[in-house]
């Protein structure tokens, strides 16, 4: 059984991002869900599945059920993603399976959080660093940037790479963000700006780190036969794959390779496509070096060469393979668990076409990849238009 082409995204919506103090995380989640349903040309009564992720600022024990109650929905299929990053695409994969298995016909996946204004800065940092092992890592006082800095340092050592290679990822993402009026960061930056920003956890500097934001995002996924009558061009799920190695970075077999290799191979195999077929990619960019490792493991760049790819501008607007066309977590927004969903809504917009200045010409195949934990849990999704079905 293959899922290829069995489900399509017909609705996509992002709330405003950045500092949104006048709306709770719950309200942002509901706004995202309603926006995506409206974008699909549907009403809530036509939705029989709901997936959310928990919020750090406003958690519920049964989050998706709480959002369903708020909306007055009684979904047949209801699930809460336990975390963010790769888990966001894992629940997309599972929602497609649920549709294929007949558990439901049309699912809304809605995620939101208010990390910026809903939590104190210290509470947000402690909450995020709880990804460390409580007994064997957390007592040593590492921050999330600190965990990723261990990866960054190893990457510099393994490939004789330079901090400029990391900086080039941030510059590329910012160039995309400057073409996206909805992105938080609108001011162009240079390699020198990144290298002059303050050190957070050596070798990572402030501009190597993603944002801390409020915001929400949602998509509507439905059975392919229903998608043909949708308001917009359907965007088909062509392939999905997952890969895992460790959970805690001190248990990682490698600091410079990740299970993006397996998740990518599995997603491409289901899609019947190869890295060369991809017109754009949204690659999880919580910190700049992660993008380099994922690009290499996904087969989008040769080993040790992703830094030069970005230094040449190959991932920037108009480049050979545009990466993170909305600006990514580095320059668009990063509200925590929902962060990677914005990469999905952006991919839907790119594959529908008509995105103006930032439209990737003739985009037919897009890849979205995210990871969670500390380079631990990966999910890759290949999306395409009707022409590549």
């Amino acid at each position, binding site marked *: 059984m293959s899922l290829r082409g069995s489900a399509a995204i017909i609705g996509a919506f992002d709330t405003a991002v950045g500092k949104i103090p006048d709306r709770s995380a719950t309200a942002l989640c509901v706004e995202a869900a309603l926006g995506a349903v409206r974008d699909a040309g549907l009403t809530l009564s036509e939705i029989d599945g709901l997936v959310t992720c928990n919020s750090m600022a406003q958690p519920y024990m049964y989050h998706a059920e709480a959002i369903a109650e708020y909306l007055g929905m009684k979904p047949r299929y209801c699930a809460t993603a336990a975390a963010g990053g790769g888990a966001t695409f894992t629940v997309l994969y599972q929602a497609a399976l649920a549709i294929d298995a007949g558990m439901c016909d049309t699912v809304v996946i809605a995620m939101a959080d208010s990390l910026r204004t809903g939590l104190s800065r210290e509470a947000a940092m402690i909450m995020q660093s709880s990804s460390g092992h409580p007994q064997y890592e957390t007592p040593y006082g590492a921050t999330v940037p600190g965990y990723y800095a261990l990866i960054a340092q190893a990457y510099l050592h393994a490939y004789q790479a330079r901090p400029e290679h990391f900086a080039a990822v941030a510059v590329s993402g910012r160039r995309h963000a400057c073409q996206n009026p909805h992105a938080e960061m609108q001011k162009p930056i240079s390699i020198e700006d990144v290298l002059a920003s303050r050190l957070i*956890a050596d070798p990572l500097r402030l501009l190597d780190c993603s944002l801390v934001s409020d915001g929400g995002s949602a998509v509507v996924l439905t059975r392919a036969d229903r998608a043909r009558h949708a308001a917009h061009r359907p965007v088909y799920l062509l392939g999905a794959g997952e890969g895992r190695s460790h959970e805690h970075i001190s248990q990682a077999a490698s600091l410079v390779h990740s299970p993006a290799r397996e998740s990518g191979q599995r997603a491409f195999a289901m899609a019947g496509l190869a890295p060369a077929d991809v017109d754009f990619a949204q690659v999880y960019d919580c910190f700049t070096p992660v993008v380099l490792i994922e690009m290499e493991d996904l087969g989008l760049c040769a080993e040790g060469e992703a830094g030069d790819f970005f230094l040449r501008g190959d991932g920037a607007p108009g480049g050979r393979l545009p990466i993170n066309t909305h600006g990514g977590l580095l320059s668009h927004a990063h509200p925590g668990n929902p962060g990677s969903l914005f990469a999905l809504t952006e991919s839907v917009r790119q594959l529908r076409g008509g995105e103006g200045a930032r439209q990737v010409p003739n985009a037919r195949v897009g890849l979205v990849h995210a990871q969670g934990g500390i380079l631990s849990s990966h999910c890759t999704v290949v999306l395409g238009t009707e022409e590549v079905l």
Partner: protein
Amino acid sequence: MTLAKPLPPVDAQSRHYWEACNEGRLVLQHCLSCGYVQHYHRVLCSHCAATDLVDLEASGAGSVKSFTVIRRAVSSAFDADVPYVVALIELAEGPVLMTNLVDSPLEDIAIGEAVELTFERRSEDINLPQFRLVGGTL
């Protein structure tokens, strides 16, 4: 209010490991079935799933697998320590563990540098394994 530094939440399976730390010993687990050595203590070998595991006392020698200098503390509990070093140490016996590199000049820290075991008394019950540079490359 200043936060206290976090203490490991000791459980029934890890008590033994932390008791050894209290005596100034770092213990690993050695699998009698496949010979694998693992950190942290588990009820099975994470390589072959066998359950005949015995303690192996680490020599305390190892080398820096990776490291970072934390410039912005995770919480106010660590503010006074900034800048402090978080590192992954590859022990001579094979396993990797996370630690701080203490009493070590920042400019001398590099991947591959040799380190030795020390301890930090964090509470009456918790003696936290820490490492410091010994100079030279392992």
